[in-house]
């Protein structure tokens, strides 16, 4: 880390450094773009993966924290930029350096009202065009009369404002149309069985070929980040179940790790092992449901029944231990909520015994099928460079050849002790994304096999103070959800409630890449490509 600091302080004398759990560089806004470019392009630094942009309101100033990671090394880095102008906050955009920043910056604009100079799309992301106020600002007026629930269709604009800097350094406002004047735009969603939730695509087509897709989200934006600011730390955990409901255990695990890191709580070994087993079980269940719904999108309804059979078996195991089929609330700060069911080990072993047979069956029915091959092979190819540029992690990123498994790149809990392969494929098409998940089921089963006979005895939860207060500071934690890297950023002002809890879901980049990945494909392939990306809408909308 010291070398990074030395290198940057030489190039950017204005930068100041702060060592939290991640090295944080504070830089004046004017130098942000050149710093970003250096960080990405320098061979030693190579921070090419923008994990998230955390919008912040520090009351006296507004700003952003950019969390960076790399596809080649395991370092992480944060850049902090701020502005004291609350009326007309403006920062420079980094969307030319990392393409995914375009949508991340739109999110920050939506929540904090910070305008990004140079971003081509400055529309609100989740909220209506007429929404009054910026909800994540600390001085946001929560009066429901300002933004009433209305049955009138929302006002929409076909264009967006752009803020560009001219040669003299002046900011000019320009209007730009999202689609070209004579584009034929078809609306798909939000109520559509194949969009996997309430997501809407405005699709410009040329005959049957897709020209451009404008992803329109916010139909299930529930304001979880704002809600968390009014709740105590143990209470915030419950929302993690309801983001990506297939990766409930993994998300809980992520936030728990972050809070435990902040509070300095040591988790007992038994709880760590149980958490990892649960994570992997939910990964298998999640991928099974993916196989089912994806095949159903392609018209193979029978596969849904086959795939859900395994999922039901896993849900039974979870039901016995956690007491619920879906929203478990099982991981708590310091460990897990309840001890394992007495039949847990036997049930999991029974599952592991039938799993290989089932996977063989899926492959026999579906993977080798000629229709499947024609519809999936070579369709929706995402190159490795684009996957990194768009921060597409998880099985979708690994299918493009990017080894981005958070369990390997930034090991947490006991993953570094375990023997498993990171499934990486080269093709980057829909078929690769499908096969990658199939193989990951086997790898998850391998992890569980290693652990199931060696669950140590002991406590299931560490001693945690009844009223949990975190010291002043900030923490960042990445875990591997079922669909990619899930990150949480936590900032505490020393009270029992988080000052800011930013949830960086893996599904937002998955939706953002749809436009890039589908353009030039046929409109019928939109369903296959969208299905193979496997995004969860409540996760991206939060």
């Amino acid at each position: 880390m010291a070398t990074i600091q030395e290198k940057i302080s030489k190039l950017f004398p204005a930068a100041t450094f702060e060592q939290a759990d991640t090295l944080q560089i504070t830089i004046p806004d004017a130098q942000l773009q050149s710093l970003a470019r250096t960080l990405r392009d320098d061979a030693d630094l190579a921070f090419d993966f923008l994990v998230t942009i955390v919008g912040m309101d520090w009351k006296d100033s507004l700003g952003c924290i950019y969390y960076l990671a790399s596809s080649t090394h395991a370092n992480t880095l944060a850049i902090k930029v701020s502005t004291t102008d609350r009326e007309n906050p403006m920062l420079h955009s980094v969307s030319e350096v990392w393409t995914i920043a375009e949508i991340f910056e739109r999110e920050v604009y939506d929540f904090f009202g910070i305008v990004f100079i140079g971003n081509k799309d400055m529309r609100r992301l989740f909220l209506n065009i007429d929404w009054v106020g910026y909800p994540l600002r600390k001085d946001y007026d929560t009066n429901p009369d300002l933004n009433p629930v209305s049955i009138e269709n929302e006002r929409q604009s076909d264009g967006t404002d752009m803020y560009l800097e001219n040669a003299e350094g002046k900011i000019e406002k320009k209007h730009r149309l999202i689609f070209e004047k004579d584009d034929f735009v078809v609306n798909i969603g939000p109520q559509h069985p194949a969009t996997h939730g309430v997501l809407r695509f405005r699709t410009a087509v040329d005959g049957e070929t897709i020209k451009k897709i404008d992803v329109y989200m916010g139909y299930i934006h529930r304001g979880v980040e704002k809600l968390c600011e009014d709740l105590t730390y143990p209470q915030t955990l419950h929302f993690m179940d309801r983001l990506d409901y297939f990766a409930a255990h993994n998300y809980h695990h992520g936030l728990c790790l972050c809070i435990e890191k902040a509070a300095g709580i040591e988790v007992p070994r038994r709880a760590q092992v149980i958490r990892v087993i649960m994570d992997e079980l939910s990964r298998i269940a999640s991928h099974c449901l993916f196989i089912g719904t994806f095949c159903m999108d392609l018209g193979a309804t029978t596969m849904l029944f086959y795939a859900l059979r395994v999922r039901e078996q896993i849900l039974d195991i979870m039901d016995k231990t956690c007491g619920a089929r879906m929203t478990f609330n099982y991981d708590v700060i310091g460990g897990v909520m309840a001890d394992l069911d007495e039949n847990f080990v036997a049930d999991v072993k029974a599952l592991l015994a039938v799993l290989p047979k089932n996977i063989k069956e899926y492959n026999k029915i579906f993977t080798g099928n000629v229709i499947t091959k024609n519809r999936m092979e070579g369709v929706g190819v995402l190159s490795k460079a684009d996957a990194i540029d768009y921060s597409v992690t998880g099985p979708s990123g690994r299918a493009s050849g990017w080894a981005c498994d958070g369990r390997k790149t930034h090991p947490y809990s006991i993953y570094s002790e375990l023997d498993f392969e990171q499934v990486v494929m080269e093709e980057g098409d829909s078929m690769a994304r499908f096969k990658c998940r199939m193989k990951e089921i086997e790898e998850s089963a391998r992890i569980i096999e290693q652990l199931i006979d060696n669950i140590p005895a002991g406590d299931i939860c560490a001693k945690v103070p009844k009223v949990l207060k975190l010291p002043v500071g900030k923490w960042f934690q990445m875990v591997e959800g079922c669909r990619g890297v899930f990150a949480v950023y936590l900032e505490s002002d020393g009270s029992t409630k988080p000052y800011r809890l930013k949830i960086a879901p893996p599904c937002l980049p998955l939706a953002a890449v749809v436009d890039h990945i589908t353009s030039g494909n046929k409109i019928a392939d939109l369903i296959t490509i969208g299905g193979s990306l496997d995004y969860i809408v409540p996760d991206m909308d939060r």
Partner: protein
Amino acid sequence: MEVTTKSMPYEAWKDNEYIEKLVQELQENGTNVIVGTFDKLINWGRSNSIWPLTFATSCCGIEFVSLGAARFDMARFGWEVARASPRQADFMMVAGTIVNRMVPVFRRLYDQLAEPKYVIACGGCAISGGPFRKSYHVAKGIGDIVPVDVFVPGCPPRPEAMIYGIMQLSRKIKVEKFFGGVNRQERNQKFFEDHPMD
């Protein structure tokens, strides 16, 4: 009159008073012998083939998928024909949170359902806003937006609870007046007059 469905014993049902009130209303109003017989026949058919609209916004929707799969198999009850178009569906299982941006879409879907139409509010979010009630961007229950027939609590409700909920709806359909009753669009007019929005 004991109203039951799928060979469930009458005592096993909850909320029998509600159904008895409906039966009483039906009997008080009186009906023509022929029309009444047709009513019974049609309601028997209707109550055994309620087609849902494929509509889900979040977690509850996944339990609804489980409901369609082999284990819970809603095909046993005649509900498996999930339609993607509201024009072909009988009821709407509102599975998941309804947020401000979704409200106009949701209302339009409801309006597009062909009469007679029913709504089941499934899960805490649809009933009251659930865990997200205090949020700035969540409708506090769908009861203010459309008339709701059955509430199924849970977060999410187990598939068994959903089955029970739809069976309750099926019971309700059995004691309705089909001719000159449920088909009338005026039926919902009063609700919308009582619940003006903006």
